[in-house]
């Protein structure tokens, strides 16, 4: 059995934990909004019962906020579920577009996340056979790097393209230069290698590509 230090040093486990913490924080935000909107609704009802005239628009706003946040909660739980099941199989056929979109949504919970413009083919057109969890890990770290380079007010582009007969390419471009970090991060080398991916960087890190085999079978 592995000891505690080995477990902590496992980048896959660290990534899984980080995503879970991020999603739980997002859910906490959603609950906080629902809690305050419901509290306000109660306050308004109490005042109304005491004979104070209340603008009905306030009731509507509260109930609409609650409804919207519940929908946001469902969407977040759906993402959490999709992410959690990505460890079920070490090799699976996945839509690259759907996988990239899932990671954009999850990474979007980071406080320093910025806008991402994505150009992608139809999800069904780019099915690849890979280790979904490891590929998610690489894309998430790439998003973290791109967010830090660009800053929360900025915007960058992701294009999903066919590289050649055997590879596909996830191209990050229009990155800023706020951070002096380089990509891939040191701890990522083994993860990138494990799915036979490679990372191609332009000078100055204003753009980079993640090149992924269409099949690692």
């Amino acid at each position, binding site marked *: 059995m592995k000891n505690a230090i080995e477990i902590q040093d496992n980048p896959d486990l660290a990534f899984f934990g980080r995503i879970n913490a991020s999603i739980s*924080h997002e859910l*906490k*935000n959603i*609950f*906080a909004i629902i809690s*305050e*909107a419901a509290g306000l609704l109660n306050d308004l009802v109490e005042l109304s019962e005491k004979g104070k005239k209340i603008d009905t628009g306030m009731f509507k706003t509260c109930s609409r*906020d609650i409804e919207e946040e519940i929908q946001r909660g469902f969407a977040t739980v759906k993402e959490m579920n999709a992410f959690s099941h990505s460890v079920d199989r070490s090799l699976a056929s996945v839509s690259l577009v759907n996988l990239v979109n899932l990671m954009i949504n999850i990474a979007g919970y980071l406080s320093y996340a910025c806008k991402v413009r994505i150009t992608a083919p139809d999800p069904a057109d780019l099915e690849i056979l890979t280790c979904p969890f490891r590929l998610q890990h690489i894309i998430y770290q790439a998003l973290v790097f791109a967010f830090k380079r660009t800053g929360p*007010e900025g915007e960058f582009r992701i294009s999903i393209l066919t590289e050649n007969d055997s590879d596909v390419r996830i191209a990050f471009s229009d990155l800023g230069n706020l951070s002096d970090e380089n990509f891939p991060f040191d701890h990522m080398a083994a993860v990138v290698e494990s799915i036979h991916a490679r990372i191609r960087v332009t000078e100055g890190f204003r753009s980079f590509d993640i090149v992924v085999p269409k099949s690692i079978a």
Partner: protein
Amino acid sequence: MSTTNKIKLLLVDDEAKFLQSVASRLALQDFDVTTATSGEEAIASAEKGYFDVAVVDFKMPGMDGAHVLKVLKERHKYLEIIILTGHATVDSAVECTKLGAFQYLEKPYKFEKLVESIKDAYEARLKRKFEHSIKHFEEIQKLSISSSPLGILKALARLDNDEK
């Protein structure tokens, strides 16, 4: 305290819906509430307005709660600041305490607890201002015996600058 006799609150959170609901609830409790959705907006509001207490979310895009706390405490020495956080850690609690936060509240909190904390923070602000005023008054008394009229005026000006 302001001329309206209500506690003047600056409420800062990047979650607009959360901010509006809490602001409305606090307004119903008779607080005079101004909202800001970012640290930069909060600092600008504090420059323009007069606030007794600020309630600031810790995790915000751009300028985070700790940075806002630091700037507000530097510029408005009597402003008491309560930090709200969705994910409390010992490190962030220590950081906020060192920077002079009045209280560090973890979400979800009971609304009554927030109201109580704001009232406590306001009392602490009044107490500090009062203590400072007495100190200044004593200084002015001493100066009035030993200093020139210009020295007395300078001491009064310093007292006036400290009011915010």
